[in-house]
């Protein structure tokens, strides 16, 4: 069973991802003013402390075995030791590398194919069914096959992560490029712009909010892909640590790895938000 705090955090991230994805479609919504966000942030922090305290007290009072559910203090201690001894760092590095590499490869491919399908009706008709079939097949189920093909280690995980990241970026790019205001397209035609100019100077910048929303969803999925890939086909990475901890009945270590995964997810998500805020500043009203 997952601890409530991590579950809540991942759920919050999922909700925020969904919300942000719809929000990005309308760039007119202004960004929240920093002043107004301080209070809710304090409240969120207070809730975390409260949940951790409740968990700690419950474990101590009921006397649940650390094998089933370790207290937060035990998890924190394990996390600290595994970080201080340097045991966890290489695994964090491996997971991060797989996640970012998969995101870069899958994201670039998704962007490229999305642009190609948006630009060419023929390609769209020919390739779209294949793209959809490739996406409805659960990629996690392909992991054993990838191990067979690419061997044990980073490669199968990166391939799977890339496949997972491909779809949100392709879909968002395709939609964003198709939704460009027809008046602006006519303006570019009127000004004698070439097809490349229209793509680079109108369609892609106009579609940027949608494309970045796709990137944000892809990043969250990339972490899931990397960890699950490591469950199956790797000896390094946080996913592999969880499997190893399970074998050693070291539940606190499992929780320590889960905490590290949650932190990576949160930081990654914040990074995409920061990137969006920077890039989309001109798109917001009266910024």
């Amino acid at each position, binding site marked *: 069973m997952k601890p409530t705090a991590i579950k809540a955090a991942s759920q919050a991230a999922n909700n925020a991802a969904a919300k942000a994805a719809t929000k990005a479609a309308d*760039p007119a919504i202004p960004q929240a003013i920093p002043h107004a966000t301080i209070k809710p942030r304090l409240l969120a922090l207070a809730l975390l402390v409260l949940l951790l305290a409740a968990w700690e007290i419950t474990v101590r009072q009921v006397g649940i075995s650390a094998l089933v559910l370790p207290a937060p203090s035990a998890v924190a201690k394990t996390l600290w030791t595994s970080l201080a001894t340097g045991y966890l760092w290489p695994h964090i590095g491996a997971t991060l590398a797989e996640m970012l590499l998969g995101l870069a490869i899958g994201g670039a491919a998704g962007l490229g194919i999305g642009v190609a399908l948006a630009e060419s009706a023929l390609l769209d008709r020919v390739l779209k069914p294949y793209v959809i079939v490739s996406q409805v097949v659960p990629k996690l189920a392909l992991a054993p096959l990838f191990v067979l093909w690419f061997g044990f280690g980073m490669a199968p995980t990166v391939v799977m992560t890339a496949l997972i990241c491909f779809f949100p970026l392709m879909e968002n790019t395709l939609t964003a490029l198709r939704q460009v205001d027809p008046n*602006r397209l006519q303006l*570019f035609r*009127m000004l*004698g712009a070439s097809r490349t100019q229209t793509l680079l100077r109108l369609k892609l910048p*106009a579609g940027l909010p949608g494309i970045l929303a796709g990137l944000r969803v892809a990043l969250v999925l990339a972490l899931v892909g990397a960890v699950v890939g490591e469950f199956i086909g790797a000896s390094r990475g946080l996913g592999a640590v969880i499997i190893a901890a399970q074998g050693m009945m070291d539940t606190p270590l499992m929780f320590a790895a889960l905490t590290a995964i949650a932190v990576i997810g949160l930081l990654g998500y914040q990074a995409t938000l920061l990137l969006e805020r920077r890039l989309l500043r001109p798109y917001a009203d009266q910024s």
Partner: protein
Amino acid sequence: MIADPSRPFLHIEGAVYTYPGRAPIVNGIDWRLQAGGFHCLVGRSGCGKTTLLKLAAGLLTPQSGRVVLQDGTPAAPGPQLGYVFQAPTLLEWQRVIDNVLLPVSLQRRPLPEDLERAHGLLAMLGLADHAQHYPRQLSGGQQSRVALARALILEPALLLLDEPFAALDAITRGELQDDLLRMCRLRNTTVLFVTHDISEAVYLGDRVAVMHQGRMLADLPVDLPAPRTQAMRHGAAFNAACAEVFEFMNGARP
């Protein structure tokens, strides 16, 4: 360019345009635009005004008839035309100055003199302080001004406007009308201005054409002194001219 002075600047000859599966939206229109003239086109919504404007711009090709320039070549979209849309249609990710320079930067790298001209246009339109702002930071009227500056940056011989001020309040619209008149007089630009507002057409135009259900009912000269001033709007001559246009629009009522 061999320009025959006896020929009109832009000649629409028997133009017919039909969207697939509908009645002709432009149904055999003959219209001559004189060089340097300010031509207004009024009509009810859906009478084919915008389609006629797109034919004049060469964005659409008539199914029969033709649209030719003074030198005998067919109208074609390009930087020699200025086109102002109903909405400002600015690129919100680019600064005001880059929006104004867009027609230039799509052709070549903007030169210092292009930049100077853009700043000059912005200054004339009262936007000198906003050159480095993004469009979303401007009011609706200011955005319309930027769109006008963008249409004028290449100093086009023909300026086409499709109800550009329809979404603005009366005072801002009046200011923009005066700005437009001033800029066009300065460059002797030929203008085709589409609107559904009779008083706007009479105030701006040397001639006002009335369109109804794909046909042109009249092309009336406006007998008002130039330059126009907002005070004229309340004079008898202005009201008489409006009444004349109104009669034609109203006479067409089924």
